[in-house]
């Protein structure tokens, strides 16, 4: 079977899935639709009950937080579709962007600095991918450890303090977070571009389709001639690049980067978005559209809970319970095979 045939077959499979979803969508709505409907209901509920929720200022804030969460989640989705997981994302996001902020006080050009920051993120991504693909350490351990290393190196070598601030005159940079183009805040625009590019990459390119194959059955993928190891590295590189973009967006929006974000529960939010969005942790399933929908739902929920002045610990408990429920449902829908179950799978 040639590559083209393969791609066509995959295409047909996804078409069939779509047509199935269309035919029976009244009977059995897809996960995206359920999540979208829930998001709408939540939005309406908060808009009616909470004063200030539907105000323009809050909507922009909400869209910005959705954007950052969404960028991280699209990157994570690529890894999860390839049956991996990247716990080092928040660490990469914090360190690479804080480093960029630190370097901006030197006399290097912004473009050079950006490339340096992206380069750092990509190095961590390559390291992650190499450890997972070649040393064959389960991705969760590998990325947990590289997250520690990345954060440690940042604090030790690259940064001077916990917080990093851009210089006052960095208007170009701050535009990335605070500017408004076509009536949309820049973070939202960046998110849409990232989501669009990755969507096209996953659905319309051969390599993108191969990532689905990799996640579905890595042995079969290898047998039909996909170079699975470089492909795994690529998924972690995409995830790290997304983390960098998310970090820059955050830094530009609030004009600072607090590296303590590593100790926050942001990574759980990302996992929540990905799992709720229907990207199964068993790999090979889901797409960017559902991740976008998931990000909207989580963004609305978090924003609503914050306005309700719910204690962050209670929020965390709620997140944990919802995430557990989502994982249980995911496991029910896509049960793992007791017989072929591999150690170290999530």
């Amino acid at each position, binding site marked *: 079977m040639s590559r083209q045939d393969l791609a066509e077959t995959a295409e047909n499979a996804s078409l069939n899935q779509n047509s199935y979803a269309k035919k029976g969508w009244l009977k059995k709505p897809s996960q995206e639709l359920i999540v979208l409907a829930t998001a709408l209901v939540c939005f309406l509920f908060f808009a009616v009950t909470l004063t200030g929720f539907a105000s323009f200022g809050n909507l922009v804030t909400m869209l910005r937080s959705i954007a950052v969460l969404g960028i991280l989640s699209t990157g994570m989705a690529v890894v999860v579709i390839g049956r991996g997981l990247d716990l080092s994302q928040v660490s990469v996001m914090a360190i690479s962007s804080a480093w960029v902020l630190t370097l901006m006080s030197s006399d290097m050009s912004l473009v050079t600095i950006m490339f340096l920051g992206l380069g750092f993120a990509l190095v961590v991504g390559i390291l992650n991918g190499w450890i997972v693909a070649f040393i064959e350490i389960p991705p969760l351990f590998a990325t947990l450890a590289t997250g520690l290393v990345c954060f440690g190196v940042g604090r030790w070598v690259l940064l001077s303090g916990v917080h990093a601030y851009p210089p006052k005159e960095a208007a170009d940079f701050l535009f990335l977070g605070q500017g408004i183009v076509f009536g949309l805040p820049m973070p939202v625009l960046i998110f849409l571009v990232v989501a669009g590019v990755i969507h096209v990459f996953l659905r319309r390119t051969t390599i993108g389709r191969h990532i689905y194959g990799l996640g579905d059955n890595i042995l079969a993928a290898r047998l039909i001639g996909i170079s699975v190891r470089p492909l795994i590295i690529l998924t972690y590189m995409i995830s790290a690049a997304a983390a960098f973009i998310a970090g820059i967006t955050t830094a530009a929006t609030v004009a600072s980067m607090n590296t303590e974000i590593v100790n926050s529960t942001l990574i759980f939010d990302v996992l929540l978005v990905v799992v709720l969005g229907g990207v199964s942790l068993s790999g090979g399933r889901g797409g960017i559209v559902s991740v976008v929908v998931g990000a909207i739902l989580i963004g609305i929920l978090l924003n609503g809970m914050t306005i309700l002045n719910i204690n962050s610990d209670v929020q965390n*408990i709620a*997140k944990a319970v919802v995430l557990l429920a989502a994982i249980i449902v995911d496991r029910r829908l896509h049960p793992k095979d007791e017989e072929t*179950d591999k150690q170290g799978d999530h």
Partner: protein
Amino acid sequence: MSSITETIQKVRYKWSFQRAVAELLAKRWMESIIPFLMMCMVLIFCAVAIPGYLSFSNLSDTFSQFAEFGFVVLAMTLVLMVGGIDLSVGAMFALADFVALVLFNVFEIPVWGVIPLVILTGALMGAINGVLIGYLKLGAFLTTLVTLLLFRATFDLITPIYAVEIATGYQESEVWDFIGDGTLFGIPANIIILIIVAVIAHILLSRSRPGWHVAAIGSNRKAARHAGIRIDFTIFCTYVLSGILSATAGLVYATRLNSSSSNTGDGLEVMALTAAVLGGVSLAGGKGSVGRALIGATTILVLINGLVRLGVTGGPTLVMQGMIMLIAVGIDVKWLKNKNKAISKIYVVPAFLDLGERPDARINSHTVFEQNSKLNNARAIGLGTIDGPEDVILDRQNRLYAGTREGWIVRFSGDNHEHQEVFARIGGRPLGMAFDAEDNLIICIGGMGVYGVHPDGEVYKITDETNRTPWKINDDSRLRLADDLDIAPDGKIYFSEATIRYEMHSWAMDGLEGRGNGRLVCYDPAKKQTRTILRDLVFPNGVCIAHDGQSLFFAQTWACNIMQYWIAGPNKGKLEVAIENLPGNPDNINRASDGNYWLALTGMRTPAFDLAMKKPGFRTRMVKRVPPDEWIYSNINNGCVIKFSGDGEVLETYWDKGGESHPAITSMREHRGKLYLGGLMNNRIGVIDLPDADPNWTGPENYWGPK
């Protein structure tokens, strides 16, 4: 080659360092050697780099922290062994610490009430993990990552409510203080508790059925499932135990410090995970022990303490922790994957073996070994319906028995042995056979030991182990490859074990090694005792008690000779070579009706193979670099049976020229003027007439008299 070089080679390859390494590597306890050395190195490093590190006050300070960390590492080890992971140990630890302090300081519950309540709290938290992972079959890593968030958030939520009361409340209790900072014989009380728990855990894990179930599930879930182990329940239990151990750690911590802060137990899970893996507990599950857990815990604790004392701060510590974890896990993954490959690369250790001048067996050579066609027209029994009759034997009723590759004993009866039936199903690989005085069929089973079959077909075990060789690295008490046997007039069963280094399926590797790996063993039915009588034999194969019952003959297949060993009479204990320098590899030996002996030659020597046996280095390289089907072996494309006298003189040879119907004959039996032929890889049993033989002679009568 000069004889000096040969002597040097002989000595050099007689003892092998490589063999010791290969055998050591196969030992399970070897896996903890590297972690142990690492621990020693860290200890030495700290002792040298930090002044006053070895002082009593510093050590007892370090060790008082050891107890709680040890409990947490034990918890992690337990779940790692079942093939899971528990990242919520740190949060459970913090919650248990908090619960203990609230119960003790705020509600003033006596210690004997606090302890069970705290442990119950731990068990409940563990049960949440257990239900999710054991019964709902969620992935352990992600699930416990989420419950970590859940427990931690709960902890953060309720801590502020009681923070002031915990700090100000106080209850006088001797027990509480004793657990916290008391000592017994100079050892901190909490360490004593840890030691007691560790000993119990060790016995539970290594000596009890539930412990074996845990290791079984961890090493192969599928196999454990097929063996009928209750996987869901066992996994559930390990997580509950993990919760209990973490809670105990929290309790010990509470008694020691009487405080609880928002960062209590933060990052403890990563530290515990690193410690467990560093100690040699495998992430893949199934491999681990309490000892390894404690070695790892000591290493990490000493290292982190040392770094703090050296003034190393945040960043480098994190980098180090991450790197240690990556390296430890990486080595674990790669070691597990490649261990067997590495062992098999160095396991075969050829020795020097000089076989001497090869006798000429060619046609027109006019030697006693000259090839002929006496076996070429042998009639076939069970053609195509029997697989690999290594040995054949006939009973008093003229029925023919043979062991097959399926592990069956097949019986042929009828005038021409046309009726075939399965007499007994034993398993393993049935090899040499003999009848005892009560007409029981005694059989050597490759891979199992020596078994007997009553005339009614009932199978019973005779022996499957002998005394262990002293000072041997590998435990060689189990019988790996019992090959052939014979029974002395006093009922003792003498049998050969061809090799103690290889299994039935890899016997040919032993041939490439050409080393004295075999032994002669005797089972005494009166004492029910199995004892090794001769060691370091070169693939001892056929065994036959001489007609006078005073000695026995046995064949050394790779050494191409027949040995005679006296078991009774004035010469008892004497061992000498009866025939040396055979043209092929001897196999089974059996009695002939005329007072002589039959011997099967299973393979023929070739000049190339003889030369190879003198070149151990060549064979080592061959085994390492060439695929097995290209290796040089002895030639097994001929069938040959020899008759020799009790004085060691070869009298006659019977050849199946070209090995057309009976190649690689491994056994032959004379019975009522006929000779029956068996072969390890043949699909038939052969039979030829012996015109000059006694037409009424049978084996059982010759051994045990008429009945």
